[in-house]
């Protein structure tokens, strides 16, 4: 009877350990990229890049549905006139995420891999204007991580920073997320995030 009780207690302890992954730290990789078009200095037209249902696609643009995007949703249109896209070193892992964007040149501004406990905030300083904050809130039963992500943009000494985007995401391990379209002095800021598997 004594050994039976010991065996049962040991198994219960094993089960509790197996379930302890719910609060394990989250490994988050973040890349911040300055995306520019090498063909000319003028910025990409927002309407051309991101047409709504009411606008007609610019000439030469790929017809809807051919960029591998969900049919019916707005899609970025590439205005690249030719030539391969250029990626800075260290961006090999996220080329897939950047390739569909309508830019020719991707310059790495910052990259960071953080291991953050659930409930703690990770900070990624991108440049003098943008700072990214990411807080893992919980792990769902299906293995995804609920994460609150906030990109703050400085607006000068007198004004508090603005939330350029404030979002709560359920991130599947290994699946990348793009945050983009934020203005920079040259080009636009694109942030790629992925939670480690």
């Amino acid at each position: 009877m004594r050994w039976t009780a010991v065996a049962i207690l040991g198994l219960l302890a094993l089960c509790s350990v197996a379930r302890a992954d719910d609060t394990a730290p989250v490994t988050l990789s973040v890349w911040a990229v300055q995306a520019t078009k090498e063909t000319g200095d003028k910025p990409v037209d927002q309407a051309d890049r991101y047409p709504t249902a009411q606008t007609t696609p610019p000439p030469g643009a790929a017809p809807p549905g051919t960029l591998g995007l969900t049919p019916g949703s707005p899609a970025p249109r590439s205005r690249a006139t030719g030539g391969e896209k250029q990626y800075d070193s260290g961006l090999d892992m996220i080329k897939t995420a950047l390739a569909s964007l309508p830019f020719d040149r991707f310059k790495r501004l910052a990259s960071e891999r953080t291991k953050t406990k659930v409930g703690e905030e990770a900070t990624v300083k991108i440049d003098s204007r943008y700072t990214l904050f990411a807080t893992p809130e919980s792990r769902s039963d299906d293995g995804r991580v609920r994460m609150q992500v906030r990109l703050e943009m400085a607006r000068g000494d007198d004004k508090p920073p603005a939330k350029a985007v404030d979002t709560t995401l359920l991130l599947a391990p290994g699946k990348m997320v793009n945050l983009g379209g934020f203005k920079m002095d040259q080009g636009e800021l694109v942030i790629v995030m992925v939670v480690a598997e």
Partner: protein
Amino acid sequence: MEFFDRKYKRLAAEFDGEITLSEAERDALLQDPERARYAEALPALRSGAQAAARVTPRIEDAQMGAFMAGIREGVATPEHAPHRGFWAAVSLTAAAMVIAVSTFIVLDGGPQAVQANEVESISTDLEGARLDVYDSDEGITTIWIVNSGDDL
């Protein structure tokens, strides 16, 4: 109850020769009919107690060995616990089930991870800006700000 009454005790003590009562005290005690009947019964009580003492079994020296062997056997024999084997079997069965279920849970590797990101909520403080969300076939989720203007 008579045995614990002081007056009855004095009658019994005089009968046993432990005390001597004066005639006046004896007469006073025997005036009560119950105490008088008790005093008359004392000789019969004595003879009956003596007879009982005579028939009390004794263990002779030749019987002492067998007597002690019986004592030891009684001490060594454990008390019979009815249905003890049944509960032991139930406990072992429950333990085996817990082992099997726990092993399955641990080795199963947990639930399969969902293959897609999900945007639960999204907002921006930038006036006039719009945030659009779409997913690619490769499972890449894109959140794009449109018409962010110059909010600096």
